[in-house]
């Protein structure tokens, strides 16, 4: 599967530096003492230049560039928590395994499980082979994105969801091309 990823970064080091080094790694946030949503890695908005723009305005004081990358997400290393129920079921089962083994971690976030599994993968190849993880980022205020299926019913779907992609390593198989598509003034 392929998609377009948008990555926002500071523009302070210039375009050539960005093209050489971006995307940039997002690790444990010391300031907020929080893990990244999907653990440490290189983050993209899935085909969402609007969110990349908003991110730049909010987090980079309006001094940012947006990098657009062609991302390849091959089976076997792609964990799709957006559009594949079997992948979602797998991850639920991971949490069940912890509980069944007497190591329940009710308070762990998605990012916590991912970080633990990545730690285990170093010594046990195959325990968490995923290099690309994708998930929907939802908030209660996402009203603008709601589309009701039919009138008179409360059932709806989202047509403008925020989808985040985290890749855990930069390689040519996953990151197939990149270009700067926006630079703030």
């Amino acid at each position, binding site marked *: 599967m392929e998609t377009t990823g948008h990555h926002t970064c500071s523009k302070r080091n210039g375009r050539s530096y960005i093209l050489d080094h971006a995307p940039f790694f997002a690790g444990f946030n010391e300031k907020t003492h929080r893990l990244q949503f999907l653990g440490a890695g290189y983050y993209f908005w899935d085909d969402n230049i609007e969110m990349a723009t908003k991110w730049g305005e909010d987090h980079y004081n309006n001094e940012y560039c947006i990098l657009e990358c062609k991302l390849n997400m091959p089976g076997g290393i792609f964990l799709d928590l957006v559009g594949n129920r079997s992948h979602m079921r797998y991850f639920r089962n991971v949490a069940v*395994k912890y509980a069944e083994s007497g190591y329940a971690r009710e308070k762990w976030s998605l990012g916590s499980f991912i970080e633990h599994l990545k730690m285990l993968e170093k010594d046990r190849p195959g325990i968490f082979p995923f290099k690309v993880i994708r998930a929907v980022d939802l908030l209660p205020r996402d009203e603008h994105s709601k589309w009701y299926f039919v009138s008179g019913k409360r059932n709806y779907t989202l047509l403008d969801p925020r989808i985040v992609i985290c890749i855990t390593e930069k390689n040519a198989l996953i990151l197939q091309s990149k270009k700067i598509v926006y630079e703030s003034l």
Partner: protein
Amino acid sequence: MSLCKEIREAAMDVFEKSLQLLDDYFVNTDPSVVGEQLAKIDSLHVDGPAPDEYFAEFTLGYPCEAWFQTNETVFQTLNYEVEDLSFLSESFNLLNKLICKQHFNSNLAEEFGQQDNIYKAA
């Protein structure tokens, strides 16, 4: 690796293999080692949201930034000790800005799973 085991592993998809390896890890690893590895992640976890993150969430797009700024200390405390909701209610009544109140309450309720109590208090 025996041929039999190789064939069996090849037939397993990545997900089955992952879950099987996770089982093996829990069964075959010294519990103290597992405990240590879990503790590494536990140590990264904090209960409740980071204050500045909440500050941004609740104020985004709503006309109550000044109130939050002047009450930041109280607000930070509330993030971790959401017990004195009556105080919260009084503060918002003084503020008397309904849209801010509703937005704040709905986020707080979702985060702490205390929707009924919060709405009653507010």
